[in-house]
């Protein structure tokens, strides 16, 4: 799409994102336990598991949002292109690792246009805002729906549109990795389908980690899947293998719906 956008082509051997022995706590609650896994560049990793098993906590460690919760802390290493994210500045890191939340959280006081470029404007980045608005809204399949009312308030949009706006907003900052925490759980089936299509498009350019409680969704959109249970990574492999030939008993029980 845009030459300037291409991420640095690392040697294919090294994953884009590598997690080593990650532990995370809320006070005394040990929410993430000794997790290690890698995410290849331009692939989609789905994280599944019953609710409360630490999926959100895990992804929030990847862009260091976890440490913003009072009383929260973490140990272990997260490498982005081989560089420890805990050694770089979190503000800078979060511009490289974007995030989309469970519920759409558009800025209510801003127009659609201002929402898209909020990350750039708030960071005092000078750029061609008009072009970025059109490009990211097109990427998120929102352009045709909103191009005539870019100055309208963002909260006038439907839930699905708001969520796609949030994705556009994250893309405008030109991240390399996109974290999505159950981005479709608050949406209706049609909006969900649109988001899934979008993710398929986005993986041409971005490395995506998506949390989902919907196993069908994981099968549809992801290359690899990780199954978490009670803060522990039980199994991690290609999506097809994990759902058709799980190695672990817990995984099999979960994907066949015996619990969770």
């Amino acid at each position, binding site marked *: 799409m845009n030459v300037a956008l291409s991420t640095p082509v690392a040697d294919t051997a090294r994953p884009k994102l590598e997690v080593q022995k990650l532990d995370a706590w809320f006070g005394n609650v040990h929410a993430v336990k000794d997790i290690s896994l890698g995410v290849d560049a331009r692939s989609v990793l789905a994280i599944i598991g019953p609710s409360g098993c630490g999926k959100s906590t895990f992804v929030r460690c990847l862009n260091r949002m976890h440490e913003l919760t009072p009383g929260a802390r973490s140990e272990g290493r997260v490498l982005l292109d081989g560089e420890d994210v805990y050694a770089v500045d979190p503000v800078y*890191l979060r511009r490289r690792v*974007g995030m989309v939340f469970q519920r759409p959280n558009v*800025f209510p006081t801003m127009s659609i246009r201002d929402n898209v470029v909020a990350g750039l404007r708030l960071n005092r980045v000078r750029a061609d805002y008009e072009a970025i608005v059109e490009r990211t809204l097109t990427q998120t399949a929102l352009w045709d729906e909103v191009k005539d009312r870019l100055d309208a308030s963002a909260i006038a949009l439907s839930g699905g549109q708001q969520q796609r706006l949030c994705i556009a907003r994250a893309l405008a900052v030109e991240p390399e990795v996109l974290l999505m925490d159950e981005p479709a759980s608050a949406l209706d089936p049609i909006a969900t389908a649109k988001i899934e299509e979008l993710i398929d498009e986005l993986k041409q350019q971005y490395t995506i980690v998506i949390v989902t409680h919907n196993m069908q969704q994981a099968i549809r959109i992801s290359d690899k899947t990780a199954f978490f249970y009670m803060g522990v990574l039980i199994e991690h492999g290609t999506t097809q293998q994990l759902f058709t030939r799980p190695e672990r008993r817990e995984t099999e029980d979960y994907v066949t719906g015996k619990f969770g």
Partner: protein
Amino acid sequence: MNMAMTNVAAGQYAIPRRVGSHRARAVTNGVMTGLCAAAVALALVPLFSVLWLVVSKGIHSLSLSFFTKLPAPVGELGGGVGNAIVGTLFMVGLASCIGLPLGVGAGIFLAERGDGKLGHVVRFTAEVLAGVPSIVVGVVAYGLIVLPMRHFSAMAGAVALAILMIPTLARATEEMIRLVPRSLREASLALGVPAWRTSLSVVLRTALGGLINAALLAIARAAGETAPLLFTALNNQYWNLHPLQPTASLTVQIYNYAISPYEDWHDKAWGAALCLLILIGGLSLIARLAAGRRSQA
């Protein structure tokens, strides 16, 4: 009360099983409900009486010259409270320049970093400070400004009003900021926006409607203060926009007119009171609109 209600102990269900007839209990319920409704009526009677009299008696005094002229001496017809209106606006404006940043700033502190020990102390102090009589604050402004300068002044009055604005404004600001959903703050932080800029440009921006509402209410309250002006701004028969000169105000003017023995000054007191209520009512109305726009947003 009837027998059914005896033996009521704190925190313990004392619902009678078979004591007293249904009829008696229903009657008690009806009587007490009636009494509570009567309390509502009783509370509203003085309000409507005040509003009715201020409007009906004040309306005769209102004319263009009442808003634009200086006060006339006793017995002379005409004259107005123009200088008092300007004085009130002037001092309230000065007070806002001092009080709004301090009050809102303290509120931001309470919302952003108010969960620590200092936060609790500041919050409690603000609550308690809100109960300090305004006359005491007047004495303080006298000691701080009038005495060293050897001069009554608009500035002294404004400082007193500013001090009175701070505590309520701080608490209201905190409340408004805490109403902003955490998810918005996270959205901004996840975009790589620094925390401080997130606080100012996203959180505070989102709370702005509520802040304007709180600020306008604080300003309206300040405009109605009399006691702290009596010996700080004093009064002035003439126009004044010098911060270091004595200054007239609507409230002090009402007071002077009201306690005078002259009929025509009493009329002017009602007229000035109507002006004051219009000013305060207008500010509160705008505040309501600001708050309404926020709740729609």
